[in-house]
């Protein structure tokens, strides 16, 4: 069958191919915003339509050529600057709209355009180091500390994409347009797919935390220090909730709440430290064990837990949880049900301790399944079961706090 499929040498026709121009014009193509609703008739007339001509030769009219040159300058490595008279010519529609835009700044798409309007008018002779100093905060927005130096332009004023090594003018860093195929030129905006944004504030002593760059300027406060919502984007009015209550997340405009995070972290650190001391008892208990010690985790630290059972009642069900031995459930006067009695570790390193207790009772589980339970041990100051869940039929999950996991 496949042989029948003809290809006819289409490959040769691919001259047509070529995703030719990635022309981006950062103005409002749906630009009726500028016109007030009282001028509807005007809008109907043709000259309000926007057009993009793709010039196919270099014979541009004098004025256009000048404009083109300006752009090439701006794009070819020189640091942001422009002659003072060019502003009017270059982005005429934009500049005309600037005052208007500020009034409705909420509606302005964060973009290259806005960034440009904010650009300082620099003396062409200005010292590169001085500009670096002035712009470094902008360029390193969303970059983790150890990579910050990579975002300062080299002597030619260029930035090198981190993985693909493509070179770009530094003005294209964080200009809200994705240029690097590896997404590395937009660490501080949402323009690139699969990028990561590192909050300015990081918890001391923890690995650096990042969010997907699609969360930058999305109207939700992800970083406690508000650094991800730097463009003051808010959700549409209909989606905004009243400030009077607290919710799972904060909506923009954001407020710094890093103190809360620090407090929580402080409390966790305290538990960790105290727990690590209590852990001694657990290691001691495993001391007399021989080779079989490692069945109970590193140095047999969970052995002591196998010597006892925890009894808890959740949603009317009684659970008897004996790690490494057997877990049972009982409801009212119904017979006891075996939730798993064959221990095996799912993971027992890197701070994650998950014990699977399999081979429990089968009936009436779907697909011939037998009941099983996953016990997740977490660091706590005493041995305590805090939750038992059946998120899937016949599959149970137990959260077990213990100093052994500290």
């Amino acid at each position, binding site marked *: 069958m496949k042989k029948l499929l003809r290809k006819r040498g289409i490959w040769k026709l691919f001259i047509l191919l070529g995703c030719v*121009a990635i022309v981006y014009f950062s103005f409002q193509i749906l630009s009726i915003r500028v016109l007030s609703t009282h001028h509807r008739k005007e809008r109907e007339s043709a000259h309000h339509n*926007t057009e993009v001509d793709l010039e196919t030769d*270099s014979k541009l009219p004098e004025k*256009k050529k000048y404009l083109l040159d300006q752009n090439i300058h701006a794009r070819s490595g020189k640091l942001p600057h422009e002659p003072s008279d060019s502003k009017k010519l270059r982005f005429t529609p934009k500049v005309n709209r600037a005052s208007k835009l500020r009034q409705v700044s909420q509606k302005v798409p964060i973009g290259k355009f806005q960034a440009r309007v904010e650009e300082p008018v620099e003396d062409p002779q200005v010292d590169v180091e001085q500009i670096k100093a002035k712009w470094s905060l902008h360029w390193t927005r969303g970059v983790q500390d150890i990579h910050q130096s990579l975002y300062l332009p080299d002597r030619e004023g260029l930035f090198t994409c981190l993985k693909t090594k493509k070179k770009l003018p530094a003005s294209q860093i964080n200009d809200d347009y994705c240029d690097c195929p590896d997404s590395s030129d937009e660490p501080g905006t*949402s323009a690139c797919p699969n990028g990561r944004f590192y909050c300015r504030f990081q918890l001391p002593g923890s690995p650096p935390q990042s969010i997907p760059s699609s969360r930058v300027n999305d109207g939700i406060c992800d970083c406690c220090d508000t650094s991800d919502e730097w463009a003051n984007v808010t959700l549409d009015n209909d989606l905004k909730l009243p400030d009077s209550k607290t919710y799972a997340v904060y909506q923009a405009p954001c407020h710094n709440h890093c103190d809360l995070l620090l407090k929580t972290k402080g409390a966790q650190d305290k538990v960790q430290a105290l727990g690590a001391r209590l852990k001694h008892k657990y290691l001691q208990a495993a001391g007399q064990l021989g080779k079989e010690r490692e069945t109970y985790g590193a140095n047999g630290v969970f052995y002591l837990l196998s010597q006892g059972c925890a009894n808890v009642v959740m949603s009317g069900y009684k659970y008897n949880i004996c790690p490494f031995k057997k877990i049972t459930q009982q409801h009212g006067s119904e017979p006891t049900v075996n939730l798993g009695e064959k221990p095996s570790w799912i993971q027992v390193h890197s701070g994650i301790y998950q014990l699977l207790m399999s081979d429990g009772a089968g009936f009436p589980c779907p697909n011939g399944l037998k009941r099983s339970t996953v016990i997740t041990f977490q660091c706590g100051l005493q041995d305590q079961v805090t939750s038992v869940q059946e998120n899937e039929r016949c599959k149970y999950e137990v959260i077990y706090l213990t100093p052994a996991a500290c």
Partner: protein
Amino acid sequence: MPFKSWRDSGFCRRQRYIDLPSLYTATLDSTTTEDDTLGFALHNTGNDHHLQVELTGLQHNCARLKINERQPVKPRYEIPVGDVLVQHPQKNKLNTLNRDESSVTITMNDVQAVIHAHPFQIEFTYQDTNVINMNARGLLNFECLQGKTHSGKVKHKTTHSSMYEPLRKKPRTTGNQQSQDVDTDDTELGEFAESFGSFTDTNPNGPSSVGVDVDFPGFTHVYGIPEHAESLCLKSTRNKEPYRLFNLDVYGYETHSPQSLYGSVPLMIAHSEEQTVGMFWHNASDTWIDIDIQESDKKQKAQTNTHWFSESGVIDIFLLFGPTPEDVFSQYGLLTGTTPLPPLFALGYHQSRWNYKDEDDVRKVDSGFDTHGIPYDVLWLDIEHTDKKKYFTWDKINFPNARKMIEDLSAKGRKMVTIVDPHIKQDEDYTIYKEASQRNYFVKNKDSIPYEGKCWPGLSHWLDFTNPEVRQYWSSKCGIDQYKESTEDLYIWNDMNEPSVFEGPETTLYKDCIHHKGWEHRDLHNTYGMYQHMATNQGLLARSGGKKRPFVLSRSFFAGSQRWGAVWTGDNVATWEHLQITVPMLLTLNITGMTFSGADIGGFAKNPTPELLTRWYQTAAFQPFFRGHSSHKTERREPWLQPEENIKITRDAICMRYSWLPYWYTLFYHGEVKGGPLIKPLWVAFPRDKVTFDADDCFMLGSAVLVHPVMEEGVSEISVLLPGKEEVWYDVDDHKLYVGAETYAIPVTLSKIPIFQRGGYIIPRRDRARSSTAHSWADPYTLIVCVNKQIFAKGDLYVDDFQTLNYKNGEYCHREFIFENATLTNRNCDTSGVYEPKAGVKEVIIVGSSLKPTSAIIHWQNQAQVEET
């Protein structure tokens, strides 16, 4: 089998095989002619029954043919205008060309009808081509109501062909007869009381079925009449089961079967290279359709013969003469309405499961999406969220702070949907039960006391949604003040509304149950679910003071349900066959008006392999309603519970859905204005290209995109038909060019499904994968311009506030993009739209042009600006 074969159904046995010549004669000298309607009498010489026929010309090349008893002993059921039909269809003037005793010829615009007196039949021609014939094979059979005779014996005009002689044996009468006074004398023909398994239908009105043949000369392809898990192109049913339309709860249904499923749309579309015509059978009772396709050969011309029979009601047929597929869709849209533009969130990804068990579970699933960078918009709760399956209530143990839980989703810009079924738990502590009992709002059994059956809550009653007062009551229950803990971000899902009745005949209500105004359930069964859908939609609309667009999902549906929200294909199974069947099922729903439709991703029942689940996400991302849902007996399958590679591919598929939403939204807008499918069979886009007529493993998304999902296990290459001699196509992943009218072998990996943009079209996208639709409102657009052989392309973009009904008052913006002479023009194509969009175009990608641009000049209000390229 819990469901009937045609042999189990008395009226089917009476209607299906009739071997006598037509006994009906039209008395054409009795003809009355108004401007727009021709009326005349029919006389059955076999039983002396008299019928009245009305042939009405309708605007836009449509006609209506209605046949009823001339003087019925009691009225026969007709669906109230406004429920299925949006309004009384606009009539068109008829001209009588010729009239004598043996025939009458009339014309209405391009359509001509010749009515023959004996034997009675009508030939319809469109621009001199005979396209539809009515009763040409003499199968018209209209059982007049007679009042039950004491013996239960009635003489019947028809005989059965000897080929089906075994049928004349008594059907099964095993099981307990529920009623002692049932007449069993007539069970042979099933005219009065009839048994099915242990169930007995007393059928007190006796035989009331109607049937007629409708033939499509010159056509070999017919489509439509959902819902069946069958191929797109309807098959011949000769010596097989007919297609059935009778809304039923069929858990884990079989694929490739004419068995009826959860919903019905009795619209059939016949298509040939020359013309497309449609036929809408406006009847809500148990309906069966036989199809016989004759390919052309030396002896005969190509023709498709169909035979329609329903258990009660009247014959009320709308004929839609096209002549193009789009014409048929808009003709049908004018009759039963179109799908209103949904709120944007409803086009995003929906995550559901039976059941997210408590607030903590909801929180974990919600944050799982954020942790894994996967966008989604709506989290769904199935029946377990309620207090003992009392709908509009909450299980206080597992959902003690439901309002807070919903608000936490709202804070992220997301929504929640809860299930609300039509059965009402018999429980004195349940307000709705008490109120509905007092007000007499339940469906009654044959003895006129509220029907009692079983469903999820145990003993239950069914609200009679066919009663407008009950619908009004139900709508009020959706109010924020009535539905405790609800907010405007809580939406509703109507399940089990066929209705599903555990231990009922065919798992539904008895046909002799009694509704509003005394109509039998038999008369209106197929519209029951639609009425609940309608009432819930109206409730959500009223809740926001008519401001916000409702979103309601329903499992059961009928023609016209598209006006009330989305539907899905019910309890499917995690198999490759079920993934494959989603394409023809959803295409069929799309061409019959139910455009906002989807299938449970991964299959509701059983566990999909990671590969199947990933392929399912890739496919569903290009189907209108995009929801993952699964049974409580399955393993959890949120996208991040898959192997690492599958998580990534699933994320990409969902992100792709989100980036294409501007295109989807624009398609939905056109769908509301003009009707017609969002996802289209290939033949709709290429109606003169015969090779497309049978294709149902691929589809068009709008006019600009062809999607060929990978729906087989472990394949590394699939064969893709790219139609159109003059067309060029571009792979959306690498912009590789393919010329049309060829079949290509496309290599695929797990991350690849072949999707092509058609040359000549521009697609708007939003490429930033935000965590839900709420966050993208200010994001810039990207235009993908794919040129055709003339280096031309066009497209458009519709934008509004994405959630309110203000667009009906002109608050929208519709822009058209044209790429021509190396110039891309962006213009306002609808000056009555006054909405100011929050975002602009930031990027234009031009594909396929051999011109190598050196610069771009942007003209904006007479001023030019240049950007380098």
